[in-house]
C-alpha cells in the first residue's frame, strides 16, 4: 500500500525545503520537491535603475553572493558589449573561487558529513570516530574548518571589501586595485588554503591529488590514508553511497572562471548515458511553470515574467522547472568536472553514473583544482594596470550573464530600456536540480534521484533521503529567489 509522507523542515540545505515521498513496500516510488520560500527578486528589480542590480542581486543569496554579483555584472556587460579589465577578471576569479571553495568546504563539513554522526549509524564500526569528528556543531572537524574558512574569506577583505554582499563586482571589472603587499597577503591566504587541504582534507600533496586519474588510482591512493576525504571514501564504500541518488540526466556547465583564452572549466553538456560531451546553446534553455505557483507567461527566460499565484491548484513549489532542450539536467561541481573532462570524474561516471558519492568526490577534487588556479591568478595580476575598465554604457537592450556558482549553473537574463530594468529573470543552480515536474509530467533531478530509494520501515526518517538531498548541495534561498 502506498503511503505519502512529508519531510520538513529539511535543514542544512541553505534555506528550507519540503519533500513529499510516496512509499510503497519500503521503497520510494515517487517524490515531490517543494521550495517553500518566494521573495520576488525579479519583481523587486523591475523598473529599477540598471546598476541597482549590482546592489540587490547579490542579496538573493548569502552563501553564493559573489556568484549572484558576477552573473548580474556579466548580464549588464553583455547588454553594452563591454569588456572587463584583465585584472578585474582575475580579481573576480579569485573572489569567486574563494567563495566557491569556502562553499564546498562548508557543505562537506557543516551540511553533509554530520548525517553520518547520527545515532542511526551507531552500530557501524566507524561511528565513534566519525561522530567525534563530524557531529553537528560539536565535532572536531568544524572547529578546525571554521577558522580556515574565515581565513580563506579574507580574500574578500582584500579584493572586495567584505563578504557576503559586496559592491566590488562591476561590469568593467572590480573596484579595488591592490598593491604589492596585498598581492603577498593574497598568496599567503591561498597558501593557507592549500595547507588546510593537504593537512586536513586530503592528507597528501595537492599535486598527488590532482594526478588521480581513474577509479583504480583513487582506490590505490586511499589505502591506509588519513584525512577527511579518505574517511568519506571509507564510509561511502561501507554504505554503498554510489548506489544512492542515481540518475542519468545530462550534466550541464556554463563554463567557469573566464579570462585568458578559455575558461578554467569548460562549458558544455556531458551525457553520462553515452559518455559524450557536446556544446551548450543557451537558446535551448526554457522554464516551465506547469507545477509552480506561477502564472504562465513565456517558456523563454528572455521573454518571461515572474508572476506568483499562490492559489494555483496544479502548483506544488515556488520553483519553476528549467529545461535544456526540453529535458531536466543536473548541475554542480560534478557536472563542471564531467564537462571539463576530469579523468577521475569521467571514469567514476562511466562506472556508476551520477550518484551521492561522486557528487561529493567532484566537489573536493574541484576544491583542489581551485587552490592551484588561485595561486596562478594572483601571480598574474598586473599591479600597474587598472582593475576596472572605463566604458560608456548605453543601458539599452538585452543581455545574458551565465556563470557557475558553487552549486552549478546560474543565469541572469536582463532587459534594459533607458537604463532601467524592464525584465529580470534568474535561473539558479538549485532551480535546475530541485525543479518540480514540467507540463509533460517529467520530474526534476532530485525527484528522479529519490525515486527508487529503499527506506525500509524508517520512511521519512531514512538517512538515505538525507544523503541524497544534501549530495546536491542545495541552495534553497536561490531556488525561487
Amino acid at each position, binding site marked *: 500500500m502506498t503511503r505519502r509522507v512529508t519531510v520538513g523542515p529539511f535543514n542544512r540545505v541553505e534555506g528550507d525545503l519540503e519533500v513529499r515521498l510516496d512509499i510503497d513496500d519500503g521503497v520510494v516510488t515517487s517524490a515531490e520537491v517543494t521550495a517553500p520560500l518566494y521573495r520576488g527578486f525579479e519583481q523587486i528589480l523591475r523598473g529599477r535603475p540598471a*546598476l541597482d542590480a549590482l546592489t540587490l542581486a547579490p542579496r538573493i543569496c548569502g552563501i553564493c553572493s559573489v556568484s549572484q554579483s558576477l552573473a548580474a555584472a556579466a548580464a549588464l556587460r553583455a547588454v553594452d558589449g563591454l569588456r572587463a579589465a584583465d585584472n578585474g577578471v582575475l580579481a573576480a576569479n579569485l573572489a569567486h573561487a574563494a567563495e566557491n571553495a569556502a562553499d564546498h568546504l562548508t557543505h562537506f563539513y557543516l551540511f553533509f558529513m554530520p548525517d553520518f554522526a547520527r545515532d542511526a549509524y551507531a552500530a557501524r564500526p566507524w561511528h565513534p570516530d566519525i561522530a567525534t569528528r563530524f557531529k553537528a556543531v560539536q565535532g572536531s572537524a568544524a572547529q578546525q574548518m571554521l577558522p580556515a574558512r574565515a581565513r580563506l574569506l579574507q580574500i574578500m577583505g582584500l579584493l572586495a*571589501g567584505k563578504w557576503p554582499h559586496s559592491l566590488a563586482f562591476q561590469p568593467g571589472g572590480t573596484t579595488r586595485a591592490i598593491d604589492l603587499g596585498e598581492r603577498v597577503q593574497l598568496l599567503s591566504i591561498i597558501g593557507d588554503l592549500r595547507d588546510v587541504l593537504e593537512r586536513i582534507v586530503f592528507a597528501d600533496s595537492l599535486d598527488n591529488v590532482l594526478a588521480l586519474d581513474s577509479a583504480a588510482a583513487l582506490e590505490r591512493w586511499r589505502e591506509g590514508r588519513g584525512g577527511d576525504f579518505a574517511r568519506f571514501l571509507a564510509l561511502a564504500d561501507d554504505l554503498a553511497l554510489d548506489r544512492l541518488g542515481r540518475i542519468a540526466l545530462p550534466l550541464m556547465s556554463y563554463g567557469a572562471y573566464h579570462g585568458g583564452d578559455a575558461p578554467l572549466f569548460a562549458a558544455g553538456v556531458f551525457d553520462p548515458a553515452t559518455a559524450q560531451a557536446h556544446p551548450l546553446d543557451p537558446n535551448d534553455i526554457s522554464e516551465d511553470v506547469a507545477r509552480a505557483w506561477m502564472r504562465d507567461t513565456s517558456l523563454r527566460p528572455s521573454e518571461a515574467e515572474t508572476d506568483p499565484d499562490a492559489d494555483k491548484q496544479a502548483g506544488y513549489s515556488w520553483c519553476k522547472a528549467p529545461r535544456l532542450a526540453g529535458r531536466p539536467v543536473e548541475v554542480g561541481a560534478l557536472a563542471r568536472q564531467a564537462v571539463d573532462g576530469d579523468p577521475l570524474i569521467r571514469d567514476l561516471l562511466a562506472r556508476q553514473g551520477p550518484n551521492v558519492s561522486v557528487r561529493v568526490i567532484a566537489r573536493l577534487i574541484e576544491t583542489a583544482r581551485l587552490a592551484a588556479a588561485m595561486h596562478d591568478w594572483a601571480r598574474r595580476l598586473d599591479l600597474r594596470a587598472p582593475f576596472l575598465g572605463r566604458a560608456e554604457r548605453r543601458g539599452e537592450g538585452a543581455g545574458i550573464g551565465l556563470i557557475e556558482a558553487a552549486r552549478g549553473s546560474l543565469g541572469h537574463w536582463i532587459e534594459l530600456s533607458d537604463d532601467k530594468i524592464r525584465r529580470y529573470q534568474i535561473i539558479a543552480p538549485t532551480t535546475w536540480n530541485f525543479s518540480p515536474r514540467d507540463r509533460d509530467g517529467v520530474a526534476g533531478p532530485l525527484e528522479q534521484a529519490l525515486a527508487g530509494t529503499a527506506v525500509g520501515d524508517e520512511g521519512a526518517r531514512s538517512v538515505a533521503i538525507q544523503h541524497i538531498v544534501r549530495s546536491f548541495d542545495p541552495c534553497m534561498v536561490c531556488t525561487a529567489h
Partner: protein
Amino acid sequence: MEPFNVLWLQGASCGGCTMAALDNGHSGWFADLARFGIDLIWHPSLSEATADEAVAIFERVADGAQRLDALVLEGAVLRGPNGTGRFNMLGGTHRAMLHWVRALAPCANYVVAAGSCAAFGGVPMAGSNPTDASGLQFAGVEAGGVLGAAFRSRAGLPVINIAGCAPHPGWIAETLAALALGGFDSEALDSFGRPRFYADHLAHHGCARNEYYEFKASAETLSQQGCLMEHLGCKATQAVGDCNQRGWNGGGSCTSGGGACIACTSPGFEASQNFMETAKLGGIPVGLPLDMPKAWFVALAALSKSATPKRVRANATADHVIVPPRTDHGRRK
C-alpha cells in the same frame, strides 16, 4: 551553569547573516558560542535535528516545556499573500513562518533580529514589496511590524535589531554573548533597537579615505581612491556602524573595497535607488553628515576644497597612489 538557549530560525532570508556569523572569531564561531555558554538548540544550517525532530523542538518551546533564552530570526517575515504568510511556509509543518514567529516570540526571554531583513524588512521590502515583507517590530522606519510596537520579550526588551546586510560577524556574536552574560538592558539599545556598542558609531569613523573626505577630494568614478560621498553615493556619514573601525574579512569594509556605504544598517535602505550615485540638489548632496548644519557643511567644503594639497587631489582620482607624501629628506619637526 545553565546554558543560554538560542533557537535560530530563517524566514525570508538569503542566509547571509548565518554565513557572516560563521566567520566570527579566531577559534571559530562554535568555540566562541561554547565559551559563553550558548547552546544553539536548533539552527537551520547547522543542527543535526531535522524534520519532525526539529518541529518537536519548536513545539516544546511553544508549549513552555523548553526554556528559550533567545529567539533569533534571520530574514524578513512575509505576510503575503493576503495576510496568509504562504510566501514562506516552514517545510513539513503546513504553517507559515509568520505563524511560527508569532507563536514563539512570546516564549523567549529575548527576541533578536539578525540582519536588516528581520529587523526592518530589508531587501524583500524593496520596490512594490511583492510579498508584504516586514521586520519583526519595524516595517521600514515605521514601528509595528509583525509583533507590534508594544511587544516586549519576557525579559522586558523590545526586539534587539542587529541591523546590517549582512551584519558584521562580531555584531552578531557579541550581542548573543552579551545577552548570555546578563545585564543587557534597554540602555544598550538605540531608538531602532540596535545594539549601541556598534550603533553609536558612524560607518564613516575610521574610513581609510578620511584625508580625502577632509579636503573634499572626491573620486569621480569607481575604483578611485578619493572620498565617495560627493559623487558615488556614500552614506557612511549618515549610517550607524563601526564598520571602518573593526575590519571585515580580515580588514576590509565596503568603502575600503571601493564601494559606497549604502547605509545597510538603516531601516528602509533598500528603498534608495542609484546606490552608487549621490543624489544632489543644486550641486549639494541631499544627504549631509549627521549632526552637521548645512550652511557649515557648504562653507567648510568650499574652504577645504580650496586648501586641498596637490598630492591629495591627484590621488583622489587615481586607483593607486601616484603622488606619495613628501619625504622632506627625512626631517621631522
